[in-house]
């Protein structure tokens, strides 16, 4: 029999995950993976937080634990604690039962469930995302049935925020349009608005009735402080308005492959939140029925135990600090080499990624000649750097920038 799928062509490699595929194939001993945003230690090894190992042991040793289906919305306590983590322990929205939360599969899953809900229940089908944004955002929203537009965000000339462009584009959006906001540590640029700029964004959006959809994948990872990194989200919630929040524990708890995340929908009233919650179940059930138990159990164990929570904060700050130190070292190395150009954005940008400003030719050159792997938009994951490898990267950047000028 002929296959009904005979005419299917092979899909291109995912631009982000495909980098690691290529890196793995490279036999060079000097190769460096600055592609996917997964934290690495100074020794270049993946890291499982001590507090996560502790939580895992507690779970394994607890013979009373079973592996039954979770409810469709996941672990209730995990959901409550996740909402508190992003909104603050004393958030009125939580106290007033105005927040509907669903445990989802990390940031991706939270975004997708939220987007499908919007496509089903919201009157506006367009979402505005910053230019540029995480490569998977467009696919997530499109598959959910939303159409995607861009708002200006990154300014290549300053390697900073194009604030005027942002305000203009959001100001021109139709009333009620959905707007994706990176809560902190913008991916891929590392460029975040200042607190003052966030306030202006908030005012502008609220006056136009635009619906904020926060992607919070790096809380605690950006500045090292969970509360500081949550500020933009809390500012929006403090004004009493509604918003969507997708949270991920992939990076800040190092739970990557366990797929731990949460979608919170902050509503105006408790009865609305309750109805919204019931409708979220109808989105989730035909997708995967209920979320995976293991990772969320680990996260919940940590969040609800104050000693473990404090341990977590310390380990999280250490990761953030190491990244900040890598930024400084790279900047210093390029300055010392006298590499042409202004490289201060390396220390101005924040979070796991640096948008180097290198073009795709330069990136290809660095991959071919120096075995350095990054996405073709010039984004490097600072987490993949160590004191030992910074010089190699600085050499490569220098060569790429000065060749054939």
């Amino acid at each position, binding site marked *: 029999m002929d296959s*009904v799928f005979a005419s299917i062509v*092979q899909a291109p490699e995912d631009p982000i995950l495909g980098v690691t595929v290529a890196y793995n194939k490279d036999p060079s001993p000097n190769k460096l993976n600055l592609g996917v945003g997964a934290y690495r230690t100074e020794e270049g090894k993946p890291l499982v937080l001590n507090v996560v190992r502790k939580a895992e042991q507690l779970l394994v040793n607890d013979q009373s634990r079973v592996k039954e*289906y979770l409810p469709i919305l996941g672990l209730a306590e995990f959901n409550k604690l996740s909402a508190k983590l992003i909104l603050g322990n004393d958030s009125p929205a939580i106290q007033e039962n105005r927040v509907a939360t669903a445990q989802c599969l990390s940031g*991706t899953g939270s975004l997708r469930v939220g987007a499908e809900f919007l496509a089903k229940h919201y009157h506006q089908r367009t979402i505005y995302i910053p230019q540029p944004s995480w490569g998977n955002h467009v696919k997530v929203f499109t598959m959910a049935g939303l159409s995607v537009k861009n708002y200006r965000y990154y300014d290549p000339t300053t390697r900073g925020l194009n604030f005027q462009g942002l305000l203009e584009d959001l100001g021109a959006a139709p009333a009620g349009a959905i707007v994706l906001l990176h809560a902190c540590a913008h991916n891929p640029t590392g460029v975040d608005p200042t607190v003052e700029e966030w306030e202006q964004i908030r005012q502008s959006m609220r*006056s136009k009735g635009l619906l904020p959809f926060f992607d919070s994948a790096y809380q605690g990872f950006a500045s090292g402080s969970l509360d500081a990194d949550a500020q933009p989200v809390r500012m929006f919630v403090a004004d009493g308005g509604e918003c969507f929040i997708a949270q991920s524990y992939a990076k800040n708890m190092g739970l990557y492959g366990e797929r731990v995340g949460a979608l919170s929908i902050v509503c105006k009233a408790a009865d609305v939140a309750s109805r919204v919650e019931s409708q979220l179940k109808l989105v989730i059930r*035909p997708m995967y*029925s209920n979320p*995976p138990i293991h990772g969320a159990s680990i996260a919940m164990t940590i969040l609800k135990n104050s000693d473990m929570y404090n341990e977590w904060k310390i380990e999280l700050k250490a990761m953030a600090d190491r990244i900040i130190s890598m930024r400084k070292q790279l900047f210093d190395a390029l300055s010392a080499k006298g590499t042409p150009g202004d490289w201060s954005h390396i220390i101005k940008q924040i979070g796991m990624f640096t948008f180097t400003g290198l073009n795709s030719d330069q990136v290809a050159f660095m991959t071919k000649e120096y075995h350095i792997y990054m996405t073709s938009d010039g984004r490097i994951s600072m987490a993949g750097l160590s004191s030992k490898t910074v010089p190699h990267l600085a050499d490569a950047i220098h060569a790429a920038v000065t060749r054939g000028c």
Partner: protein
Amino acid sequence: MAIRRAMSGRIMDRTAVVGAQYMSSWWRSVQPAPKDPILGVTEAFLADQSPDKVNVGVGAYRDDNGKPVVLECVREAERRIAGNLNMEYLPMGGSVKMVEETLKLAYGENSELIKEKRIAAVQALSGTGACRLFADFQKRFCPDSQIYIPVPTWANHHNIWRDAQVPQKTYHYYHPESKGLDFAAMIDDIKVISLFSPQNAPNGSFFLLHACAHNPTGVDPSEEQWRKISHHIKAKGHFAFFDMAYQGFASGDPEKDAKAIRIFLEDGHHIGIAQSYAKNMGLYGQRVGCLSVLCEDEKQAVAVKSQLQQLARPMYSNPPVHGALIVSTILSDPDLKKQWLKEVKVMADRIIGMRTALRGNLEKLGSPLSWQHITNQIGMFCYSGLTPEQVDRLTNEFHIYMTRNGRISMAGVTTGNVEYLANAIHEVTK
């Protein structure tokens, strides 16, 4: 640099609440959703205070004390895993090792098809996730096709293909009078639905088949019947998609339970399969499963797999690692695998024992009705034939919880409650 991140309480105090407080909720018109017919049963059961309450609703295995079971082989696998490995992202297609072992279960330990690399396969979020991925894949690459779903089927099948926006139709399956298979009508439906009929798009139709232990009826075709079904589906050029959620759980022997699939493979169909470890490994909440699509050759399998990954990426990026690790640890260790097979047989045998006991009790009570179907049917569920009204009476008067279609999860029946259950059923049906 980092200074701008400093908390600025001043700004929030000063801020006028612009616009937000004068607008009403965007979600005013969102209606409360109806409770999920299956999962809602357990919620109601948990809320019931009666000491006599019995949950024969959701299909999760219970031991003879009515307790959930974590298999010994699973506990051992977890002990080995804990603390040893990192939690890095799996590839989009999931754990390669887990998928390899899983294909062997479905296609055969020494399957030529596996050796020839003709199977495109990815780790999926249990059975639901595998079906949804396939439905999305079907929509994307055979956009004019429809899915034919048996009547009745697991309620969520309808939701899955609906949300994937694949039009659905039904085919005859359950025969209420005999409480068995409506074989003749099923074959008629397959024959009438023609690949080239004017109503159908040239891409043909897709048939959803339960590989074994049909949910909710427990009614499976015989081997002879499967051969005829395969023949007619092939004659009409349809695509056969198997949902196999109970391999090992039906007869106690995974090889036997894969018979229908093997027949279709022998006949040369290019099938798709959704596999789940929720029940047969007791990994319910871990969400471990696999979607596979048999292709013409290795090149096509590579292409199809890449496209399946493209569908997984915007849904959850990559699947959860823990459950997959448990599966691959067990299946790649001959001793653990042997232990697993033993434990699966114990579960299946207990259920078969409960079927015998329930039927025996009803007959002993002198019920005027025939309860043969309880032991004819197979797997976790028994389609009792009870009406929704009778089910409501069971719940309201006897605190017995099941779905309103009369589906009894035999896994919830124990030596401790089988008499009580039989009495109650007799009361509402005599």
